[in-house]
């Protein structure tokens, strides 16, 4: 079974940028556009790793992160955001985020986070790197 990855961002552009750095053929990918959808997709899809934006309509990433980590403390949630204030970083760490990445995402950082959370993707990530260079 392929590792499951969930991208949560209200911006189609941001989702596109992130998809470009993912080994798409080796993962089962789903997307959500706000925190509320993130929670329902998380329950239904049980992703191995989730990329989560913070600034979103309907429900922001802070609340989604808090709820998901409350129900699933083992979840691996990588916060991908443009909000780089120190207090934001401290807050998401306190809420249990697995990692924090700054937007726009760099391929090496996305790959590093993926490999750390889902080591079985090592081969796919290397192949993806070869393909894009």
């Amino acid at each position, binding site marked *: 079974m392929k590792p499951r990855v969930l991208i949560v961002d209200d911006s*189609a*552009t941001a989702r596109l940028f992130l998809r470009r750095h993912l080994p798409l053929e080796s993962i089962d990918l789903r997307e959500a556009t706000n925190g509320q959808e993130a929670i329902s997709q998380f329950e239904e899809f049980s992703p191995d790793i989730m990329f989560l934006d913070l*600034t979103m309509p309907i429900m922001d990433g802070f609340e989604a992160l808090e709820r998901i980590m409350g129900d699933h403390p083992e979840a691996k949630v990588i916060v991908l955001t*443009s909000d*780089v204030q*120190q207090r934001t970083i401290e807050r998401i760490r306190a809420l249990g985020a697995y990692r924090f990445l700054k*937007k*726009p995402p760099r391929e090496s950082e996305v790959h590093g986070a993926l490999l750390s959370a889902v080591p079985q993707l090592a081969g796919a990530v290397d192949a993806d790197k070869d393909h*894009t260079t």
Partner: protein
Amino acid sequence: MNPITDEERDALQEVMNISFGQAAAQLAEVIDVFIRLEAPEVELIPALGIVDYLARNVSGVAKAQCVHQEFRGDGDGMAFLLFPPGTERRLLSLFQAGNEDRHESDILLELESEVLLEVANILIGACMGQMMQLLDRHVTYLPPRAMAGDRLSDLLSDAGFTQDDYTITVRTHFQFEDRAVSGRLFLVYREHSLGNIREALHEFLHGYA
């Protein structure tokens, strides 16, 4: 006038989102404040409708404190930062933490105006700067000016917009958590800049990897 596509609108919102996040972090370094950000929204509107547009988006716009700054270059336009009345006094208290000296009323008014301009300068400059850097474009700025919201109408009337002009507006809402300070930032690009902005967005979308 060619309307912007959904893809271009989304790309501009994302660029703005990244830029404003950086601007907030820069301001947080100057004053000990955490800024809550709302997702920005992009709209294409008739230039002559800007005043109505601002009025729709800011309650009591005539009484708002406004900082206006024009920019020139690859993107010609103007930025408006609007705060509810009385904000400048609360902003001043942020800058004066630990230095609570009382001032004469005229000095106080001057300080309040200065602090409003300073906060606006950081937010607009950092936001536009980051945005232009992402888009690999360049603008220069005219000095920011503080004014009352009821003068916006005159300012926009004098801006030389015609009935055929359309502008891209980008608006976002921010709030200084625990400090009862919030405001709205609007960027308005003149129609002749739309081609440049569109081209830059396409390069950003297709060149980024």
